[in-house]
């Protein structure tokens, strides 16, 4: 029998973490930056392809699972999180990453997001947020800004967009961060911290859609960036400060916005098991006594 150690050659450069499939993304798509950053993160952490599994749903960004040299699972629209969760529960030692877009995360799949946040299963969720449905060619997304013109809002959106960072902090996620696909070095740092964090890590990557929104997005976002690492007073363990940062209108803060140490779901499961095991098993005779009228 061939063991996984023999079957998979450990990549020695970030580039070797790519599967070799040519991405179908448009030239200039922000998602290339995320792919390159992930390869560098895998390399930095020395992740073994056979011990790493990345899950996605549907959308342009969800294609990323096929482009990495690890296990990949291109799942159903919106269902990356529960499928990833199932794999993590069955194989707790796997490095589990879920990835996808804003439609997958905050539209069809939003029901799973609050529960992933509050359960605190040790996995990382990267949402490549481009504020539009790219794969189906430019419809309104749940993060599209108010007034945005799309193919399903020809005269401007009348809906209030979801704020993913506010949502994640509000749902008790223990690691909430934001990165920009135009700054790979910074994104590598943020994603690395997310994977290293014990518990559920949510990372929103602003990943512009050059085809259906425009190339100028990179410059617009870049000019609004505020790096939280450069702010010595910012304390990511302070929840109220995190809410303020998440609600900013005049600038876009990137970096670790909120982080809290908390036992993971598996930690708590282990405690639960030990407690249950330590309690004396009731005999049938004891039960009869309990229910005796």
């Amino acid at each position: 029998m061939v063991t996984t150690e023999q079957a998979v050659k450990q990549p020695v450069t970030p580039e070797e973490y790519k599967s070799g499939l040519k991405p179908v993304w448009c030239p200039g798509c922000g998602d290339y930056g995320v792919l390159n950053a992930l390869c560098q993160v895998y390399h930095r952490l020395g992740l073994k392809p056979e011990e790493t599994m990345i899950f996605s749903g549907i959308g342009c960004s969800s294609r990323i699972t096929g482009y990495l040299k690890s296990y990949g699972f291109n799942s159903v629209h919106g269902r990356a999180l529960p499928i990833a969760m199932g794999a993590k529960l069955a194989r707790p030692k796997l490095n589990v990453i879920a990835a996808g877009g804003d439609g997958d995360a905050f539209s069809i799949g939003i029901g799973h997001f609050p529960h992933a946040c509050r359960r605190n299963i040790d996995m990382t969720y990267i949402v490549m947020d481009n504020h539009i449905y790219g794969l189906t060619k430019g419809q309104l997304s749940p993060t599209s800004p108010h007034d945005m013109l799309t193919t399903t809002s020809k005269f401007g959106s009348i809906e209030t967009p979801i704020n993913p960072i506010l949502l994640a902090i509000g749902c008790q996620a223990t690691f909430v961060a934001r990165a920009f696909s135009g700054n790979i070095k910074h994104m590598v740092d943020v994603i690395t911290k997310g994977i290293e964090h014990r518990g559920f890590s949510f990372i929103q990557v602003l990943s512009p859609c050059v085809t259906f929104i425009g190339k100028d997005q990179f410059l617009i976002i870049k000019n609004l960036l505020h790096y939280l690492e450069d702010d010595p007073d910012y304390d990511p363990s302070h929840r109220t400060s995190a809410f303020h940062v998440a609600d900013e209108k005049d600038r876009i803060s990137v970096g670790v916005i909120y982080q809290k140490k908390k036992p993971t779901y598996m930690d708590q499961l282990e405690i639960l098991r030990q407690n249950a095991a330590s309690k004396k098993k009731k005999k049938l005779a004891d039960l009869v006594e309990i229910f005796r009228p």
Partner: protein
Amino acid sequence: MKALITGNEAVSIAVKLARVEVIATYPITPQTNISEKLSLYCSRGEMDADFIKVESEHSAMATLVGAASTGVRTFTATSSQGLALMHELLHWASGARLPIVMANVNRALGAPWNIWCDHSDSLSQRDTGWLQFYCESCQEVLDTVLIAFRVAETVSTPAMVMLDGFILSHTAEPVDIPEQEMVDKFLPRQKPLAPIDPKDPHTLHAVTGPDYFMEFKEKQYEAARRAEQAAREVSVEFAKIFGRNYPLTEGFMCDDAETVIVAAGTSAGTCRYVVRKLREQGRKVGLMRVRTFRPFPFEEVNSLLAAAKRVAVLDQAVSPGSEGVLFQEVKASLYESAGGRPAVYGFVSGLGGRDIVPEYIEEMIEKVENSGKEKLDRVNWLGLKK
């Protein structure tokens, strides 16, 4: 007025002509441009309707269940995974007796991912209580959306109109677009079965125990069966107004045919080509195209097939562990036929967008007529890679 339009445009135009009042959709390939067109019509004021792009197909159907409960005309469009996600609400819409109309652009269901045409998405919803129509041309798509509204509202039962993904949805054909006035005449407002009425408030669909639940289901069943006669009558009226006739099943050169092919959707066009070709060679072959799948047209199927010696059913969906879906239905129908009992053979092809070419149809006829008939299985695959 004639226009060169795609199947998806034909759907959008029909929905506009039907004066639908609430539309809720979620994008999915190859349906998306129906949503886009309808959104445009609504925001431009060309339609007096509310369009909402909701957060999932499940929500789209839920929104329409709410809207239709007030008695307004409602519409959605979807495909494949989107239809599967709606499943729970499909049962709800039919159980609540809401005449919602939906266009389903046929596309394969994963896994693995595939965006191309087959009939597995809609055929796996056959028991949800929705009427199902399968179209062969862009003209038929436009006309069938109108017919679907009329039949659905007549029997208070939801209806879905199927068009083959990409083959019809994205291919342009010359289509005669009816005048609004004539459509208004064909589609008058019908009184909804039990709309929400502020003057007479009721709770809808509350828990119904074993003492009455079956009565509800029997009424729902009877309505869907009544749709068979309703569809025949509506077709006659449609033909009178618009000059185009849509029987529940279409027979082509069936009269003296010894071998009859059964197909649904655009593959019937390829079958018709092969039938013509073989007829020129003096071979007695015919085609029956199933246009209305729910209600299942037992009468038409039995009368068209009774005289044949053998029937070859071409399925674009298979029920794993059993047989081709259309094959099962045709066979079951013929069992009760008072006429002859032809031998029925099941073939599966065209899954996930695999082209159904004339050679496959010829191969199918060859197999049921001559060589290797004994070797035929419950499911016989056409065009499978060795």
